[in-house]
């Protein structure tokens, strides 16, 4: 019998050792989740685990050291915590996709994380479904105090000649377009969720004079930018909006900044190329835990120190609530979702 050496043998040993908590002996076919929630931090994972009753643990070799198992329930809904940042995210998702413990070929992926939101697009606690994710960090940068005449930002594409040149996409992981059908369907389904709000979020929201920032949390659709560096302030906020438009060729779709999506998508799209993942079954959703730029009259630094985490509690809970509405729809109507997103 052929055995996979290295990680697989060790993973098999781990499964055997913890068989009491695991469905499926090594000899059985890999588990086929209906839904795999991909979240970033262990704190973000908790509301999902509670809301979906993910009491089973499936060890995955090479996964995030602080949460080295995939959490599942009897309905084959599972959750993977990747760890924060691109290195953790790509490593964890690739371990799940290429590790052999799961058959993900018909799985719906809900890639869910906290994000900073553009106050012109949403507010603390809002839920935003993305149609596109764009990498903001794969770029050249000089300090913004040393810009040549005509440059409005220190960021520009690699091997570009100015910040207005369309970036070349040399790495291949710069832009991913998600299924618009699934994004729209998920956004619609999640509107039934009751979104929480709290005093801290209300206080920080009150600093803004008008627009979506001042409203109660809601479900919206707008695009996400990925960077390990948490940009703060009006100038880098304006750059985020402009960069999204420059890369996608579509104006004004940016709303959320976070640190995982393009890395998650890199691993999933490699899986899709290998036939292990269906790229039309991936949705990306964010919960707004902070604003990406301050209200008029406040400095970037004041905004970070006063309100930088004001939306974390509501956004963390709201992500799980909004996501659960989608998970429930998929699982309860699997016959219609099994072959793809129903019309």
């Amino acid at each position, binding site marked *: 019998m052929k055995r996979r050496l290295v990680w697989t043998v*060790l993973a098999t040993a781990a499964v055997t050792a913890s068989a009491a908590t695991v469905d499926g002996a090594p000899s059985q076919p890999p588990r086929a989740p209906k839904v795999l929630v991909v979240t970033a931090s262990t704190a973000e994972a908790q509301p999902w685990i509670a809301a979906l009753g993910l009491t089973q643990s499936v060890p995955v070799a090479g996964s995030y050291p602080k949460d080295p198992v995939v959490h599942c329930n009897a309905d084959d809904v599972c959750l993977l915590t990747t760890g924060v940042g691109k*290195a953790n995210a*790509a490593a964890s998702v*690739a371990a799940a996709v290429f590790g052999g413990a799961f058959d993900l070929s018909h799985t719906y992926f809900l890639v869910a994380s906290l994000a900073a939101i553009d106050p012109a697009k949403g507010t603390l606690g809002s839920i935003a479904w993305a149609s596109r994710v764009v990498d903001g960090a794969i770029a050249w940068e*000089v300090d913004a105090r040393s810009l040549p005449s005509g440059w409005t930002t220190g960021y520009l594409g690699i091997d570009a000649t100015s910040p207005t040149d369309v970036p070349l996409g040399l790495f291949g992981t710069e832009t991913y377009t998600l299924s618009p059908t699934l994004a729209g369907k998920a956004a619609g389904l999640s509107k039934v969720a009751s979104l929480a709000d709290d005093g801290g979020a209300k206080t920080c929201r009150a600093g803004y004079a008008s627009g979506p920032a001042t409203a109660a949390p809601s479900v919206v659709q707008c695009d996400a930018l990925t*960077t*390990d*560096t948490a940009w703060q302030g009006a100038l880098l906020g304006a750059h985020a909006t402009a960069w999204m438009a420059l890369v996608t060729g579509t104006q004004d779709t940016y709303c959320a900044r976070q640190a995982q999506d393009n890395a998650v998508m890199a691993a999933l799209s490699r899986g899709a190329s290998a036939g292990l993942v269906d790229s039309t079954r991936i949705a990306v959703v964010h919960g707004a835990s902070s604003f990406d730029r301050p209200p008029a009259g406040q400095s970037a630094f004041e905004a970070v120190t006063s309100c930088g985490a004001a939306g974390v509690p509501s956004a963390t809970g709201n992500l799980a609530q909004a996501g659960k509405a989608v998970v429930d729809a998929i699982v309860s109507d699997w016959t219609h979702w099994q072959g793809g997103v129903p019309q």
Partner: protein
Amino acid sequence: MRTCAFVLASALSLAVAGCGSSSGGASSSAQSGDAGVARAVKVMIVNMSTFEGPPFRSALGLDESVPVTGLTRGDPNVHCNADDVCEVTTGMGYANAATSMTVLLSSPAFDLRHTYFIIAGIAGIDAAQGTLGTAAWARYAVDIGIASEIDAREMPAGWPYGYFGTGATAPQQAPTTTYGTEVFQLDESFLQAALALSKNAKLDDSSQAVATRAHYTSAPANQPPQVTQCDVASADTWIAGTALEQRARDWTKLMTKGAGTFCMSAQEDNATLEVLTRGAAAGAVDMHRVALLRSASDFAAPYPGQSDSACLLGSLNSGGLGISTSNLAHAAQPVIQVIVSRWSQWASGVPKM
């Protein structure tokens, strides 16, 4: 009969490419799985861009192609020779590096438990530490991307630059929140062995590199390249200029408690090292056998009188690109040669030098 690259793919009759034999002309499939035996690799070179691999392949005769499902479309094969020296190209940036390394460690084609890894790529160099073509073995890989940033034009008064640690309130403070991938220290014994074995390696130079470096007013920037030791700062963002270079220096010191010295700015190492660290935790690789080599393709900051933007925009035309890729192979080759030719001494770990 061949070992299929993925149990899952086999079950689903997918990923045919991962199960088939290589059609490459020089390919010999004997080691890569006819008997279901994983190839025990002595040395795995980890490159990132597609132009870093060719100098290694040609110098080491890595003529056998082993397809691995899940690697990049640009280079879907691991390249090996009969001495079990192999090379993989991960693709550029964190997402590609972490994905490809996880794919490699998940592959049944290789037994990497006793493999010496040499991570080798090009970088931007601090002129205070080296010059175009310099090859440096790193003790530390420090992430400079995981941080907060305010555009320097609207940062608080007195800050030297707009970057500051996550949760911190000033650039000089350590981050209050960490994600686990911020700092990696390479094995000191392997580092010292690699440095000793490669220090007299003959490095390439180019007339254009000579001309570029002549603008710098002091050594080592205006001297021919050498093999040295200094550390890598990693981020997807390719930073350049005086202020951001100073930030890389400061951040390297801060995150290594003063022990590290920034010299090379690059875009993958903390992602690559995170995967290897996870692999070591699973018993799949040995972190005592991992070395990190970077060679300078460009200067990270301008020479006197040059602007930050001019330095950055000219970085791919400074004359360092070609020599940096060939010098990676020149510096690594004596190390690889000794490991392979004296494997009986290296099989159980880095021998006392």
